């Protein structure tokens, strides 16, 4: 992803992710990765921990953008990403007690990230966990289709291009079939339980 991505509006970035998905997010990851490593190593000497924080930061950012919660008027892409990365790094340092005096600076972006992380934790219900198990029993193509559709939020056109479907109708009929199979697996596992 080019340097200009820093000036993209939230909705433009959202569109790009929905159209190009993983390719775009990996490009974004690569674009700032080395710079973030240098930045992170100001706070922590472990490159692994800094990289883990960067992974989590880009993943959270991706989801925030897809959910339409990123407001480019408040901060640029890079600033926002580095803020999440810093937050992730500090949280990890705190957990590992590597640094007893970690003070989170006041930053308006922190509250958004905090809310986002808490919200995500609430979502990992027992039902969702059961569904994850059922998902793993689905065929690879169904797993891929449902992930592209419901996690990456790909447009149908992008799915056609990525998975080689003939047209929109085929995508929807295959998706229905996958959901039906998943539902059956899910209900079976619920009965067993």
């Amino acid at each position, binding site marked *: *992803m*080019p*340097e*200009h*991505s820093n000036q993209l509006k939230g909705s*433009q970035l959202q*569109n*790009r992710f929905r*159209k*190009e998905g*993983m*390719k*775009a*997010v*990996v*490009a974004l*990851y*690569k674009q700032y*990765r*080395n710079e973030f490593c240098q930045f992170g190593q100001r706070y922590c000497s472990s490159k692994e921990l800094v*990289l883990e924080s*960067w*992974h989590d930061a*880009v*993943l959270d950012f*991706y989801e925030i953008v897809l959910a*339409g919660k990123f407001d480019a008027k408040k901060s640029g892409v890079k600033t926002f990403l580095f803020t999440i990365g810093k937050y992730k790094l500090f949280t990890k340092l705190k957990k590992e007690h590597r640094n007893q005096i970690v003070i989170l600076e006041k930053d308006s972006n922190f509250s958004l990230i905090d809310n986002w992380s808490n919200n*995500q934790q609430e*979502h*990992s*219900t027992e*039902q*969702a966990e059961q*569904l*994850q198990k*059922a*998902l793993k029993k689905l065929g690879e193509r169904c*797993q891929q289709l*449902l*992930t592209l*559709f*419901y*996690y*990456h*939020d790909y447009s149908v056109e992008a799915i056609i*291009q990525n998975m080689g479907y003939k047209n929109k*109708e085929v995508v*929807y*009929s295959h*998706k*229905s079939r996958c*959901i*039906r199979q*998943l*539902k059956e697996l899910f209900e079976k596992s619920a009965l067993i339980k």
Partner: protein
Amino acid sequence: MELNPEDDQLLDSYLKEELPQVAREKLQKRLAQEPVLAEALSMRQLISKGVKPLGRQHLKKLFQEADKELDASTNSTSINLLQSSKPSLFPWLAAASIAILLGLAIWWTLDSSTPNRLYLAHYEPFPNLIAPIDKGGSNEDVLAEAVQAYERADYATATQKFELLEPIEKDARIYYGLTLLQSNQMKEAIAELTLVASDKDNRFQQAGEWYLVLAYLKNKEVAAAKIAHQKILATPNHRYFGKAKELVLD
């Protein structure tokens, strides 16, 4: 009970918060009255949560691959720098270069008919016929920068610039396809060139067909290359007919 395709799409748009107010309210009323529809929605909501770990896991793998790639390129740069400061390595480097040249010569002789060799022998850069000098809109500037970067073979910059354009103009798609081809992003290059080749309204459609043949060759998809090649040969007034005749695919 099976959900009909219209309702399926309606539920997805609702989940993605894409429905206009009126349609949303209408659907909410139906959800209150139709248990099958309500159940289908909650299943989809559950899937949205359930696929998250799978999606994240897959992306993490891609990030780890990117880490390896970036670390390798950083390491090779440092190795090159170290080597350049040690003159005593010169004889070894010279010997290695001779060995590589010899190897290449042998490979060239023995391997002259491989798809990649055919690609190299027949690939010529497609000229920049569109780079607008007009500095009117910002999109046009980026397009001009993209095509100019392509022209000077700076494919990394060209890719970045093209990615800024949404959507890419019809006539510029071939340059994006060739940029991807030169960047070895084969799957994407073939997809892009297929779009150009199948679009009768694209002024570079025939060029698209020719470069698609070459892209297939570069990607060692000989059967697909042959089909695309035959298509050109079957059209005597094709702009690339002469070039296609020079290319022999057994």
